[in-house]
């Protein structure tokens, strides 16, 4: 974030805390993308993700006075989003919504993108236990390091690293279907995660 953006954000936070609804709306607009995306990757359903992300901003509105800075705001939003998503997944056990692999119609904007493989990966993510999924999403969507992930999820750094190592190994193995490896465009479905590992990591 540039110095100007940080200054704007700080001003907006102060104005929103003072009761300025328009400033709060602008803050929501600035942060909607990461919050919604985290919810979407965790819940794998657009409507559920929008609902959860709106709940997060509602909770933010009630908590504005407790926020200290723009950095704290970003941290707070990630933390509340992930904890709410994990709670929801654990409560509902196996979520029965439309799989993200089908629901996510976002067009690839990169020339070397492989939409089929990306869909497979997102499908495989849905098989990870909520905490393991949260670690992967924070690492590869938000680009957080293990220390930041640990702070966000209330996890030790060693636990974060263990989740990363095991999940990567499982994803790598599941993608290694003959004839459909990295870059392949075969319609072969991905090999599911080994049953002994599902919901364990």
């Amino acid at each position: 974030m540039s110095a100007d953006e940080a200054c704007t954000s700080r001003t907006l936070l102060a104005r929103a805390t003072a009761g300025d609804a328009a400033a709060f709306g602008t803050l929501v607009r600035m942060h909607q993308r990461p919050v919604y995306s985290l919810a979407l990757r965790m819940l794998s359903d657009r409507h559920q993700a929008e609902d959860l992300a709106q709940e997060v901003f509602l909770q933010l509105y009630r908590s504005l006075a407790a926020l200290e800075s723009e950095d704290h705001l970003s941290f707070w939003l990630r933390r509340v989003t992930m904890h709410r998503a994990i709670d929801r997944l654990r409560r509902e056990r196996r979520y029965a919504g439309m799989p993200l692999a089908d629901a996510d119609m976002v067009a690839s904007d990169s020339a070397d993108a492989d939409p089929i493989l990306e869909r497979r990966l997102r499908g495989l993510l849905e098989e990870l236990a909520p905490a393991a999924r949260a670690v992967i999403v924070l690492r590869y969507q938000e680009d957080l390091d293990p220390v930041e992930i640990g702070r966000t999820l209330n996890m030790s750094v060693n636990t974060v690293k263990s989740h990363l190592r095991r999940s990567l190994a499982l994803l790598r193995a599941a993608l290694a279907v003959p004839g459909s490896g990295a870059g392949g465009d075969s319609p072969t479905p991905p090999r599911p995660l080994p049953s002994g590992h599902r919901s364990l990591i």
Partner: protein
Amino acid sequence: MSQDMNRDDNHDVEQRLRAALRPVDPGAGFVGGVMARIAAERPRTARLPSRMPR
């Protein structure tokens, strides 16, 4: 050697995860939805904007 291969494979999976997890925007009515939920909640709370004259 197999460690090098694992590292390469991990790097490949990591790159693909980053691509698969690109952030996306919610629907166009998202901010309006948040503001509507706040407005619906206001009458139930005692919280007043601090700049409102007392």
